[in-house]
């Protein structure tokens, strides 16, 4: 590369991308630096007596959730794609809906259903005079945690695998049928191997969500990395050890991602042709029909319908008490902060994606990888890193102000800036992936055509590139917005004093043992997410046509 080649790389796009990237990497650096700092006595204690428990619990939950979500997600995807059974078209969409219920809401809803004063035990006692053994109805265990994660996270695997099967498998499955293989056989010898990449992608998303979760494990009192980081930080007031835990967690995440890469390798099965011939579902006969229907309906029932109905019932119960002016402020807070953060994320994502697309090189490949890293850093780790960073920043601002004799200074860590900053780090990857794939789909020739007609990269960006990927921008917006709206750990620990969102308020009610009062906030989250998920899939469907 000669010098003008280097100059060509260093343009406005590059500089803006580097700045955006710096924000993303900074907290990670804070955490990793602390990992190598000298240890204190407390950390030795944690490492010796507590860390093994955290690791054991976290790994058990991950492993069990990973296996169960894979089984449920892929089997549902297979049934919905390949067989015709009652209400198939309804379930095709409905099976995504559990994604609208954040696991922490699912967790307290199920606890509320199953506990001593819950609807099941009350009915059994009052109607049938049966008092049950509480151990069978206690969901606040590690198995219960796995149960909750499985129910509300399987859609990640279901949607990815279903899309893959729908687009890619028809000729292979049809060929296998012609060659005389039975369905069961085809599922294990053809479908599982070819959709391996899609399934692994889905599972790693599920595992990232599990590691990120704070609400479920905190409520159920399970000792995992997330809860340990916060209890060390707030309970023991030991920031250094909390950062060390966060660093250990990040290394675990990096290990998972590396493993995913290794397992996936170069085996990306997809057709060279873009012509997609969807698989025609096959009619099922006799009891098979009802067995499949029963299975699918049961999953939908326990993962969406039952918790949803319970939330509606509680909302009705507490509506007058909770539906106040204060509640409107919660909705406004949630929507406005999510909106601002989403817009910032989309601007960053567009700039970085356009830069990596226009100037492909090893450098931009690294940038692209790092951009997506934030999503794999669990909320607990980001929260503590961001606070540490903002403490340093405020201290620095104060020192500068003192030196210049400015008097009153601006304190960043008491404002929404800190929270929005954390959102951007964590969710940039979601916006970026969606926009990057949008760019990939339209290719570069429109951009090149525009430049051949005398427009520079910036004008081309606004006049051609953005209108061309409108659909991808829209779906990026929806995905990021949903995630921020229901986000819990970051919001819980970084929200300014006197500022709450629907998610944190619901969690606060639940922590105060006011499960019923939390229902309204929860149902608003579920309804908004559900609606947006529906719009998102409509957008995708329209684009596919």
């Amino acid at each position, binding site marked *: 590369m000669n010098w003008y080649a280097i100059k*060509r790389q260093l343009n406005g796009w590059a500089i803006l991308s580097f700045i955006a990237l710096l924000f993303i990497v900074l907290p990670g650096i804070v955490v990793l630096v602390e990992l190598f700092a000298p240890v204190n006595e407390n950390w030795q204690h944690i490492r010796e007596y507590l860390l093994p428990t955290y690791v054991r619990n976290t790994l058990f939950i991950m492993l069990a959730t990973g296996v169960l979500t894979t089984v449920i997600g892929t089997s549902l995807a297979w049934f919905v794609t390949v067989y015709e059974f009652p209400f198939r078209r309804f379930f095709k969409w409905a099976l995504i809906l559990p994604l609208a219920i954040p696991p922490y809401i699912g967790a307290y809803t199920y606890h509320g259903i199953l506990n001593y004063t819950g609807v099941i035990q009350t009915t059994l006692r009052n109607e049938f005079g049966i008092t049950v053994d509480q151990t069978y109805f206690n969901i606040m265990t590690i198995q219960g945690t796995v149960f909750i994660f499985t129910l509300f996270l399987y859609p990640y695997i279901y949607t990815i695998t279903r899309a893959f099967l729908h687009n890619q498998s028809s000729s292979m499955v049809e060929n296998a049928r012609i060659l005389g293989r039975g369905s069961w056989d085809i599922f294990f010898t053809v479908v599982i191997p070819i959709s391996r990449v899609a399934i692994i992608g889905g599972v790693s998303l599920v595992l990232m969500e599990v590691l990120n979760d704070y609400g479920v494990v905190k409520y159920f009192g399970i000792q995992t990395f997330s809860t340990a980081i916060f209890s060390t930080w707030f309970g023991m007031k030991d920031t250094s050890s909390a950062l060390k835990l966060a660093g250990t967690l990040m290394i675990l995440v990096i290990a998972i991602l590396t493993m995913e890469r290794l397992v996936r390798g170069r085996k990306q099965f997809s057709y060279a042709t873009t012509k997609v011939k969807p698989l025609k579902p096959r009619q099922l006969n006799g009891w098979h029909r009802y067995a499949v229907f029963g299975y699918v309906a049961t999953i939908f029932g326990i993962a969406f319908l039952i918790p949803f109905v319970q939330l509606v019932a509680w909302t009705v119960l507490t509506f007058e008490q909770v539906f106040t002016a204060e509640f409107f402020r919660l909705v406004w807070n949630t929507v406005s902060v999510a909106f601002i953060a989403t817009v910032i994320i989309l601007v960053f994502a567009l700039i970085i994606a356009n830069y990596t697309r226009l100037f*492909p090189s090893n450098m931009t490949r690294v940038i692209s990888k790092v951009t997506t890293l934030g999503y794999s850093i669990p909320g607990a780790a980001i929260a503590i890193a961001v606070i540490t960073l903002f403490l340093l920043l405020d201290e620095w601002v104060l020192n500068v102000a003192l030196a210049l004799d400015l008097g009153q200074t601006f304190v960043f860590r008491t404002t929404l800036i800190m929270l929005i900053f954390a959102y951007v780090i964590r969710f940039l990857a979601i916006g970026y992936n969606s926009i990057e794939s949008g760019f990939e789909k339209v290719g570069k020739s429109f951009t*090149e055509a525009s430049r*051949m*007609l*005398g427009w520079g990269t910036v004008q081309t960006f606004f006049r051609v590139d953005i209108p*061309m990927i409108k659909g991808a921008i829209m779906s990026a917006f929806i995905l990021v917005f949903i995630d921020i709206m229901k986000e819990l750990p970051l919001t819980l620990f970084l929200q300014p004093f006197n500022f709450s969102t629907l998610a944190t308020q619901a969690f606060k009610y639940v922590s105060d043992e006011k499960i019923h009062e939390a229902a309204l906030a929860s149902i608003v989250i579920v309804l908004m997410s559900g609606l947006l998920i529906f719009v998102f899939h409509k957008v995708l469907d329209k684009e596919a046509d």
Partner: protein
Amino acid sequence: MFVQINDLHFSYKGAQAETIKGFSISITKGEIVSLLGDSGSGKSTILRLIAGLEMPNQGVVVVNDCVCCDDCQFMPPEQRGVGMVFQDYALFPHMTVEKNIRFGLHKLSRKERNERVEEMLTLVNLSEFRHRYPYELSGGQQQRVALARALAPKPSLLILDEPFSNLDTSLQHRIRDDLRRLLKQTGTTTIFVTHDEEDAEALADRIVYLGEGKIKKQIMTENNKTFNPQIPCFV
């Protein structure tokens, strides 16, 4: 010479071998040159290098006395004044025919712009389709829009990448005659790439045979009534 290309070298990122190994050519004003070669001969890459869409490892490209690239400068595509018709036309799907043609005319005044759009629509005979979107046009019509769009800013050089590959055979014959007439009528210096010898003979004044990133041979076609043996051949 109107277009002068000297010792162009290029390799794609990560590739060991050079795709283009010392390509040189001179083209007079108004000449239509065809680059003919099999797929993988590097013919489309040469077009992209001339357009400025790829950066050469070394070599000089001069168009109309303007040094587009040499060892110490690289002019971005938007400043080169080269028009290009893409293989898939790359018509902006969110703009009508008229808006597509108008797109490259931002340096003109509003009045000139309107006149030029009218002129181009008449030239390619698409006035009645001006408000259609690209997907509402046939393949041949799309190609004419792409041509009008590329010619509208009066480029000093027009390059066409496989202009007939997306058309069916019957259409192909008619269009290449029309195209030649149109290019001669506007006096546009043109380089186009094809893998079809018949296309090259029908449209070009000169055919340049490419193989392995280099010129194999050059011949003047029947079209070139004023055969000029003075044109240097770099073989």
